[in-house]
């Protein structure tokens, strides 16, 4: 393969990878740290994308729209977790299957509702940075990818700081490791987990906006992103935000290279292929707990 | 046939940066009543998990009847004759008490020759010996805490083990119930079963054990007769602090 094309693919891959990492952050918290079988995460992502689409229809910038959606999605996350906790987690061991089926059902319902409201066609948004490219020497880098990269970076940085410097952030990390100890410290693990899940879904609102900035979105996209988000979270290692970032970059680059060599039909399968490989070889991932 | 049933040689186990067991070695003699004590977090259950196969030890060797078992999956160790009860009961909640016992009977004792009538009768015998016979048809999910503990023990007994490990079977029981469980364990031992008992109820451990070993922070700090262990300064310090 031509070295120029390889450079371009890698560059595109890094921008894409950062985006994939950001898109997986919600899952990294919900599943990686809280152990919730949140298979509906990609569905919420697509929901965020379509909600952004609606806001853009009213004249808002997509990123701004995503930020404005965050409080709404936060409340949604609180509600979903509370319901999940009361119905499933509290009852003990046998509920694994039910919890999983529940989230699968939710994902499915979200997808169908989106189809009923918006149809199966792809939707796009417009913004000053969508459609234009930056010229860097011989390569052209789409501005929308740069914007997504930037927002993703800020988001990940913000989350890392939040988890390590604030009390609630550290409590979230603690609840992932030792609920009992947290209880002894006077904090209520359920409240912390609920906040964490709310945070995860709130982040998903913004990253959903990034989703529709980066490319067109249709309701069926959620299924493809099950592969990408779980690939990133599992490859990175459950519970590790730095792992999510590294894994996102790896996925982005590999997918980008496959895209240039084998074509668009095979790109979605890359994430699933890597995921199967990781599960077979090293299920703990790169930085797993 | 040597005197040693279970030989634990220099077993270590780490969880990430945390060392749960550090070079633990002990020989359990055939037919012995062996007590294992230590403060919370000292590694007792981790050691039991490594012996029973719920965990793999990182280094060292575990020999049962002269045979190295550290690479064997847990179900094969049970079939060789090692059974354990769990500290927090893990019943098969969708099954009756009786059926809970049928599982080890079918999968350990009667592999290759299954006659339902016999397994039910055997299971009832075990339930009778432990005082759960009237709950035979009750769903395991409806048992009280005490009954669940007895079920744990009964299920381990149903595997007809040569080595039975009881992990805090008496926690939270009344003193009459503790005596009941002790009586059962004594009877099993008289029938030839080697028993390792983990307990916090000191008088029970001291009455029951011929030898006692104390762990602290993953290391053996004392091994000897009950009297020797109680008198040992390190043991006292581990439990009561300096």
């Amino acid at each position: 393969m031509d070295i120029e094309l390889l450079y371009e693919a890698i560059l595109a891959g890094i921008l894409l990878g950062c985006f994939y990492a950001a898109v997986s952050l919600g899952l990294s918290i919900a599943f990686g740290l809280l152990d919730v079988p949140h298979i509906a995460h990609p569905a919420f992502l697509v929901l965020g994308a379509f909600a952004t689409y609606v806001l853009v229809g009213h004249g808002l910038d997509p990123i701004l729209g995503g930020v404005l959606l965050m409080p709404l999605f936060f409340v949604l996350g609180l509600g979903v977790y509370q319901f999940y906790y009361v119905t499933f987690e509290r009852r003990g061991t046998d509920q694994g299957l039910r919890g999983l089926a529940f989230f699968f059902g939710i994902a499915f319902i979200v997808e169908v509702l989106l189809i009923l409201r918006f149809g199966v066609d792809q939707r796009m948004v417009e913004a000053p940075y969508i459609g234009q490219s930056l010229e860097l020497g011989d390569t052209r880098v789409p501005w929308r990818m740069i914007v997504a990269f930037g927002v993703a970076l800020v988001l990940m940085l913000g989350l890392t700081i939040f988890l390590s410097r604030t009390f609630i952030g550290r409590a979230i990390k603690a609840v992932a490791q030792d609920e009992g100890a947290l209880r002894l410290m006077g904090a209520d693990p359920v409240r912390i987990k609920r906040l964490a899940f709310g945070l995860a879904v709130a982040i998903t609102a913004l990253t959903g906006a990034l989703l529709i900035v980066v490319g067109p979105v249709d309701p069926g996209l959620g299924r493809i992103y099950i592969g990408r988000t779980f690939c990133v979270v599992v490859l990175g290692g459950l519970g590790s935000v730095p792992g999510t970032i590294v894994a996102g970059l790896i996925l982005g680059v590999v997918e980008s290279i496959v895209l240039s060599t084998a074509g668009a039909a095979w790109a979605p399968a890359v994430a699933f292929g890597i995921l199967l490989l990781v599960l077979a070889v090293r299920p703990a991932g790169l930085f797993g707990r | 046939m040597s005197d040693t049933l279970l030989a634990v040689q220099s077993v270590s186990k780490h969880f990430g940066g945390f060392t749960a067991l550090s070079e633990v070695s002990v020989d359990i003699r055939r037919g012995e009543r062996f007590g294992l004590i230590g403060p919370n977090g000292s590694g007792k259950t981790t050691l039991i998990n490594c012996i029973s196969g719920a965990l793999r030890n990182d280094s060292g060797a575990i020999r049962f009847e002269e045979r190295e078992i550290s690479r064997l999956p847990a179900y094969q160790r049970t079939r060789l004759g090692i059974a354990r009860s769990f500290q927090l009961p893990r019943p098969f909640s969708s099954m009756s008490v009786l059926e809970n016992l049928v599982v080890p009977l079918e999968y350990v004792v009667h592999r290759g020759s299954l006659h339902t009538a016999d397994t039910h009768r055997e299971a009832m015998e075990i339930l009778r010996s432990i005082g759960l016979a009237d709950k035979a048809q009750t769903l395991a999910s409806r048992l009280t805490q005490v009954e669940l503990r007895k079920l744990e023990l009964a299920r381990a007994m149903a595997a007809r083990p040569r080595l039975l490990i009881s992990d805090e079977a008496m926690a939270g029981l009344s003193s009459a119930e503790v005596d009941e469980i002790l009586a059962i364990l004594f009877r099993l031992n008289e029938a030839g079963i080697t028993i390792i008992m983990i307990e916090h109820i000191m008088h029970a451990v001291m009455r029951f054990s011929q030898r006692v070993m104390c762990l602290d922070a993953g290391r053996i700090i004392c091994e000897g007769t009950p009297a020797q262990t109680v008198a040992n300064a390190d043991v006292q310090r581990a439990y009561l602090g300096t």
Partner: protein
Amino acid sequence: MSTGTVRFLIGAAIFLALAYGLTRLVSNEYVFFALYVVLQFIVLATAWNILGGYAGYVNFGSGAFFAVGAYTGVALYKALATPILLQVVAGAFVSGLLGLAVGALSLRLRGIFFSIATVAVAIVLETVVVNTPYLGGAKGLPILRPEPPALFHSYLEWTFFLMAMLAVLAVFCARYVETSWIGRGLRAIRDNEGAAECSGVPTLKLKLFAATLSGALMGAAGAPFALYLSFIEPTSVFNLNYAVSALAMPIIGGMSHWIGPVIGAVLLGTVQQLVTVTISSELNVLVVGVLLVLFVVGAPDGILGLVRKLRRPKAASAAGAAA
């Protein structure tokens, strides 16, 4: 053979006789199309439940196993014009292998990883099929039906009867597993895998067995698909509806007994047909999803569980031996 088994076999024989009688008496093709779909769901739901309901491992990619059976049948038919029974055997074999492979990969890990692996397999295989011209690619492949065998008017009636036989086979397998020591081991795994392992249950082997059997039955259900429809294309075979239905039907019907998936398949399959025909196919899919969530949340033991609660006068004993 126990009396229960004898009664079951007699019931199955009567069922098949009725099915055959139907082909002699009814000539409206639509009836057979519709019944075929319901019978197909019985096989899929029953197959799903062997791994999902009995062992507790949730397959989100049933469509893949179904599709592998279908495309194995197509490939064999295209290459060698084999009779349909051979396609069924081949489809079952290949899908069974797929179940074994996915299981070997992911059943050592926590349940959710197996579930994700099944999604992964579904998408990867769909991508492979779409990019394989021999199998028709994205456009699909029309299939010419051969002449029906001697006892049947039309090939459609023959595939309908074949699916009836497969339904009986699937239920027979499920019932055998459920009432045997294998079923008890699977239930132990579902209730508490760690304790099962310590009670001598070879958990990995049993899970692999269940995954293989489940996959094989799903593949058998898929194999006649191309000849039933005279056409095959990826979106209809890999349809998410199969994945969701295969999961929803046992949950709604009841996962603890072999009759649960049958009830779920018949009820939900009929509802689906009605909604699709009277309202829309999107709404049909929504109805399945909503029912799934409602039952998972409110009636986890399914319709069987609800019926049991209604009949039970006092505190229960354990579920007795199956019929």
